[in-house]
């Protein structure tokens, strides 16, 4: 296949009556739903009842969406403290499914869903799959993990809602993924961007790309960059899209970018976003960066008020070139807790990735940051893979490459960096969330 250029793209919109309405019309849908959800949690979730009482807020104080800042926040800690089902807002018999996080740190997070929650989740994804140009004629190869993790199951639910064919591959076994992708004639695939790149490289190496029918890739669950997207698009000859979600809110599909790639459209009729100063918790000026905070407007089983995602982004409410008015969040600048303060400078792993990719293929965009403290001084070591095509048998040339990477990173991050070149394909490709930073400092 070949990548569809913007000028040849034909935009399809599944629900223009929602996706293209004015901001005022959307606000009235959101206001109505906010009032409902606040009443439901006040009546059914002791945690929220207490929190609202502590703040002196009653459901009657919430009249429209602009009252949202009167409501209490919810944090990951709150969810953990009420593990597993303490924040459930419906009786057990209405729950039809649970999904959760991969649980890389601490306790698992497990979220229950009613049938309506599943339907809403699927509908959001169906809108987004449509945004990626897919229809019920398509076959979508899902190589996100299935199981508790929302990636595989979430996409599966969305593909069903769209009426397309789901190919539930789950993650792992790249050889089998490649064989099925070719044999089943998949027209799109979904997985993390790092695995997408790995898979694309493997497909190229195996020479099967000319026999594939893939035209779109749906990738998320970890940060990636425009350059990385273009690399995957270039290798496979497809259009790739950035999907975002978190299980606390529903799963993948809370937001996705369209062909214009000018931010990720949020499904704001179901998930209301705020951008707050991570320190003070007050709203930033429109367009400024801050922490993304979500309120679930229609969730039944596990509604959350003002859930602090820790993702740093900004939001754009202007109408997109695709025709949608769903506001768009920009590429995440990082996470409030992935952000490392090194020698007083804020460092986000995504900055490293962007810098590496900007070098145009000299090194693979797979990296690991290691922060140490040596003699009371922070030392940042960046381990990067030497791309096979750039590999040299001359130490002089490898050292020059290392120094060049060091220079590029110093420029991007504003601090000196120790670069360590490592063998190609030795840094872990993740099928869930990637570990990008190891902090050995004891602070």
């Amino acid at each position: 296949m070949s990548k569809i250029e913007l000028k040849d793209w034909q935009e399809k919109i599944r629900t223009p009556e929602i996706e293209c309405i004015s901001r005022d019309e959307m606000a009235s849908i959101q206001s109505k739903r906010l009032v409902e959800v606040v009443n439901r949690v006040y009546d059914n979730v002791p945690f929220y009842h207490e929190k609202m009482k502590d703040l002196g807020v009653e459901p009657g104080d919430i009249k429209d969406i602009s009252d949202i800042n009167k409501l209490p926040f919810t944090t990951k800690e709150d969810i953990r403290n009420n593990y597993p089902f303490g924040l459930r807002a419906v009786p057990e018999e209405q729950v039809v499914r649970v999904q959760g996080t991969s649980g890389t740190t601490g306790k698992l997070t497990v979220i229950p869903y009613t049938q309506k929650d599943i339907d809403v989740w699927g509908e959001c994804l169906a809108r987004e799959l449509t945004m990626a140009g897919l229809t019920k004629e398509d076959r979508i190869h899902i190589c996100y993990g299935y199981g508790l993790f929302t990636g595989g199951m979430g996409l599966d639910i969305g593909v069903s809602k769209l009426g397309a064919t789901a190919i539930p591959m789950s993650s792992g076994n790249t050889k089998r993924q490649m064989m099925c992708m070719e044999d089943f004639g998949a027209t799109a695939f979904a997985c993390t961007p790092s695995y997408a790149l790995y898979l694309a490289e493997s497909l190229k190496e195996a020479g099967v790309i000319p026999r594939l029918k893939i035209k779109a890739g749906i990738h998320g669950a970890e940060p990636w960059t425009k350059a990385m997207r273009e690399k995957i698009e270039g290798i496979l000859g497809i259009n790739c899209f950035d999907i975002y979600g978190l299980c606390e809110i529903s799963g993948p599909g809370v937001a996705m970018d369209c062909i214009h790639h000018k931010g990720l459209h949020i499904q704001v009729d179901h998930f209301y976003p705020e951008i707050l100063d991570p320190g003070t918790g007050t709203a930033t000026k429109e367009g400024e960066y801050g922490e993304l905070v979500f309120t679930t407007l229609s969730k039944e089983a596990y509604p959350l008020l003002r859930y602090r995602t820790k993702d740093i982004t900004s939001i754009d409410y202007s109408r997109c070139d695709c025709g949608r008015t769903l506001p768009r969040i920009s590429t995440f600048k990082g996470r409030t807790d992935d952000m490392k303060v090194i020698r007083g400078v804020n460092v986000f792993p995504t900055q490293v990735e962007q810098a590496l990719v900007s070098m145009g293929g000299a090194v693979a965009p797979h990296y690991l940051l290691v922060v140490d403290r040596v003699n009371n001084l922070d030392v940042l070591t960046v381990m990067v893979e030497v791309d096979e095509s750039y590999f040299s048998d001359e130490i002089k040339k490898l050292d020059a490459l290392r120094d060049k990477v060091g220079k590029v990173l110093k420029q991007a991050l504003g601090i000196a960096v120790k670069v360590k070149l490592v063998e190609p394909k030795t840094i872990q490709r993740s099928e869930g969330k990637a570990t990008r930073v190891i902090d050995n400092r004891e602070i």
Partner: protein
Amino acid sequence: MENNTIKQLSIFIENREGRLDEVLHVLGENDINIVALSLADTEDYGMLRLIVSDPLKAKMILKEAGITSMVTDVVAIKVSHATGSLSSAMHVIVEAGINVEYMYCFANGAEASAILKTDEPDKLVEVLGKSGFAVYKELEAYNANA
């Protein structure tokens, strides 16, 4: 014209325990005979350079084992064991203004060889030839200690 260069296998090796052993083990298991070996060391990594009995097969085998290697053309000069033999060869090279990236030696009984990486292999062989130094041909080098 016959090829003046032989194929060397270069392998990037991280300085972590057992990695060199792993590479040599993979080659040994697949009946790849090592004729010459040089390991250049830096703080963070090593560069292993090998002359082996079948360089292209060795590259394939390593790739299957997940080890990236590259094939580099190098010149293997025959030098006798006589004192000053290597020195006079080097003298010829320096006089001709040929840049040598790196060099290492190996010996097999009566024969010895200096392996050189240069970007002007033909010129190198020509000036050496005029001064009476011969170079190894591919098969001859790969089977030098067979």
